[in-house]
Each structure stands twice: as C-alpha cells, then as structure tokens.
C-alpha cells in the first residue's frame, strides 16, 4: 500500500470554500433533475450567495422558459426562502433546442 497523498493545504482549503457554497445547490438540483444531461452551479462572485445555474434536461422540451425556470426555482425553494441565495441566474436548455 502506498502512502496516502498529503493534500496541498492551500488548494484543499480553496476547494472547500467553493464546494461549501455550491454543493448544497448542486445536490438539490441533482435530486430534482436526475435525468439532466448538463447541470452546473457557479458561484459567480466567490461570495457564496450569487449563483449561476445551468440545467439541460429533456423535461424542458415543449415548456415555456417561464415554466422551465419555475422547475429550477421549485428545486431551490429552500435556499431561496432562507436567504442563502441572494441572486440567482438561470439558464435552462432542452436537449434538442439550444
């Protein structure tokens, strides 16, 4: 058995900060959109409360953008309500159209 790799403390600290902010949203979206072909959460400012979410799913096909975004809002209702999301940008895509 080889030695366990000692993580670079600086790098892992940065990764932790990023994950702490986006991971809960990522998990909620993965739960709500298990069929998603693309799913990304970006902490837009690094401050942990301005997010850009991208979801591509066949479920969006035939829905208006309002209804597509509503599904994303529904998935993120808890963090929207408790204020942990201060600003949310959403990009939804069907899997056929752009």
């Amino acid at each position, binding site marked *: 058995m080889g030695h366990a790799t000692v993580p670079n403390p600086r790098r892992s600290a940065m990764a932790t900060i990023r994950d702490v902010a986006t991971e809960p949203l990522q998990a909620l979206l993965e739960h709500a959109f298990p069929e998603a072909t693309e799913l990304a959460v970006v902490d837009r400012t690094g401050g942990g409360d301005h997010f850009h979410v991208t979801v591509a799913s066949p479920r969006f096909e035939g829905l208006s*953008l*309002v209804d597509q975004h509503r599904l994303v*809002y529904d998935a993120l209702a808890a963090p*929207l309500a408790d204020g942990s999301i201060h*600003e*949310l*940008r959403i*990009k939804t895509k069907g899997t056929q159209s752009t």
Partner: protein
Amino acid sequence: MTLKDQINEIIETEPVALFMKGTPSFVACGNSQRALAALRSTGAPFTAVDILPDPRFRQELSSLSGWPTIPQVFVKGELVGGADIVEELAANGELDRKLTEALGDGYRDQRSERVIALNVA
C-alpha cells in the same frame, strides 16, 4: 385598494409592466438593469413599479405571480419572466414577437416609460 388589488390591477391593465428594484432613472439592482435594458431595446412602452419602498410589495407580488425573484416582466397580464428570460427573448427575437402580438405593429417607436407607485393600504 389593498396592495394585492393594486398589483393585480397593474398586471391586468398595463400592457407591459416591469416590477423592479428602483426606478428606470435610479435602478437599484443589476438584474433590474438587465431587464430594463432588454425592454428598452424593443422600443415598447412600459410601466415600471418599484418594489423596494416596502418589503410587502415584493411579498405580495411573488405570492401573486409564484415567481420568487425580482425583476418580473408582464405582457398583457402574462408573466414573461425575470432578467435572464427577458434578455434571452430579446436576443432571439421572441420578445418582439410577443410584443407585436400584444401591442400591434406600431409599438416600436413609442418608447414611453411610466412609473406607478404602490401604496401601503
């Protein structure tokens, strides 16, 4: 008139309504600015409503529309979307199509902007 009735009346009677943070001459949020710029790019007349003066304005609006964030753009009573959607629809021409359908062909050069203030009942 109750707050809910005031908001409902704006949504139902104003051809294009923009609920935003601030006013067109003093925008208080980047997303409201994006929605405002997208609407202005169409040349359509619209009515802006500032939701910042009282937290109940936003609560009532979101409970009526079922949309949690600000800004919100309505055309003929229908929620068209927030900043991301309105920007996307302006870019792909869909907003022009919606506005033509709602306002007729001549809307592009009207460029009138009006502000309505909500009152705490």
